[in-house]
């Protein structure tokens, strides 16, 4: 089944593409030369909540994926091989729980390419919290039973957004090493391609539970990102704190460089520059907006030792914005393009590593997911 999307394919396939998933459909920003003008199109799939978007460029041409859900008609996985001009939904459900699992797919939270050397492998993180793997380029997915059958699973508690598996990281040097994160179960790792899993949250303090300093699992991890230079180095935004691991997630150490800014959703690593990452902290878990009306992206270039505020081009007055876990991303350029969307429908972008920003779109529905990529010349 092929569904024609809301805009014609551009003949120009160079430049940058930014997918903006909102609560009312998918919007797309295209820039032919990564210059001044981004063209907005959409909504595609109007009325559907698009929590997951993915741009997979491992095979050369970019393949796009969306995971959306209709309030009435349930979740749908779609893919496009022509930059969103047309979208395909497989006749047989590509992504659903198998017989015997006693569960039904509620929402797709994450669509992640597998290792570079296996371009047909993809992963999907869903609600209720589960991991799926595809070996045919996203046409069909199988439940990763090792995680689904984990003895902790029945004790996992949902975060505010639901019991969701929202992060999938494949180790760049060993495709059998997987790291996933669940709200509010924490980080789990596998060293055998997903057959067996272990909780990996040592050092992450759970301030919302008694005795929260030494819990094996139950952490409300919001997002994890891997450093571009050292694959064992990870950055983590927790419900109440920011953390770093230097040993692949075995242990975590709190980063304290942004005074008083513990809460937030996304964390983004620079795509090519070692020790460089970005945060967008929010004020307290009760308010969950940019602090004091100032929209500030924070950047570290020394792996979290120090953080510098980036404000050029971002609103610094009466800006009470919320940026969710998958609504901040980077593209593959160097200097990096950075893009984030807000719950109030703005999309901001930077094409100079975050030194300066400008608004690319406004008045959109609440933004849930943003993904960006450079397109081949």
């Amino acid at each position: 089944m092929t569904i024609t999307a809301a805009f014609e394919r551009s003949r120009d396939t160079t430049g940058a593409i930014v997918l903006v998933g909102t609560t009312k459909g998918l919007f797309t920003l295209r820039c032919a030369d990564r210059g001044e003008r981004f063209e907005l199109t959409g909504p595609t799939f109007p009325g559907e909540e698009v929590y997951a978007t993915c741009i997979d460029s491992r095979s050369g041409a970019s393949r796009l994926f969306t995971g959306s859900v209709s309030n009435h008609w349930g979740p749908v996985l779609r893919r496009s091989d022509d930059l969103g001009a047309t979208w395909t939904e497989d006749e047989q459900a590509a992504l659903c729980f198998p017989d015997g699992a006693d569960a039904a797919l509620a929402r797709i939270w994450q669509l992640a390419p597998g290792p570079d050397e296996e371009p047909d492998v993809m992963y999907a993180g869903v609600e209720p919290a589960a991991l799926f793997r595809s070996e045919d380029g996203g046409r069909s997915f199988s439940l990763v039973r090792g995680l689904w059958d984990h003895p902790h699973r029945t004790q996992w508690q949902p975060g505010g957004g639901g019991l969701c598996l929202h992060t999938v990281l494949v180790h760049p040097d060993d495709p059998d090493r997987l790291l996933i994160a669940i709200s509010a179960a924490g980080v789990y790792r596998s060293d055998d391609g997903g057959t067996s899993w272990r909780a990996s949250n040592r050092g992450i303090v759970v301030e919302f539970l008694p005795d929260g300093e030494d819990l094996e699992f139950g952490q409300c991890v919001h997002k994890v990102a891997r450093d571009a230079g050292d694959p064992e180095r990870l950055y983590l935004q927790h419900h109440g704190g920011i953390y770093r691991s230097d040993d692949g997630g075995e242990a975590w150490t709190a980063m304290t460089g942004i005074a008083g800014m513990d809460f937030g959703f996304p964390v983004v690593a620079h795509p090519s520059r070692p020790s460089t990452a970005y945060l967008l902290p929010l004020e307290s878990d009760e308010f969950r907006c940019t602090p004091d009306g100032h929209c500030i992206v924070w950047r570290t270039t020394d792996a979290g030792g120090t953080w510098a505020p980036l404000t050029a081009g971002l609103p610094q007055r009466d800006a009470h914005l919320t940026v969710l876990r998958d609504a901040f991303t980077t593209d593959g350029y160097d200097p990096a393009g950075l893009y984030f969307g807000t719950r109030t429908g703005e999309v901001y972008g930077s094409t100079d590593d975050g030194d300066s920003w400008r608004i690319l779109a406004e008045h959109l529905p609440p933004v849930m997911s943003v993904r960006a990529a450079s397109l081949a010349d």
Partner: protein
Amino acid sequence: MDVRVRLPAQLRDIVAGAAVVEVTVDSGPDCTTTVAMVLDGLAAQHPALERRIRDEQGRTRPHVNLFVDSDNVRDRDGSATPILAGEELSVIPAVSGG
């Protein structure tokens, strides 16, 4: 027995714009045909359409209403509600959302 299933506008793209699809159903041993059997037949003929109506556990999605002629099946026997020859199954989205 063939049963007509009437679709809302939101689902017609899946079946090339059709407002009604005919579903061929094998009746049970007691010659009854139920809503569940019609949806099973729909799953065989149009799987992408059926999964908009039911999840993979076979449960009707919570914001989808099914009517046998003018009766909401939730007010009768749910998916076990019988459909008689000549009756029509209508799929209607509930008034909900945000």
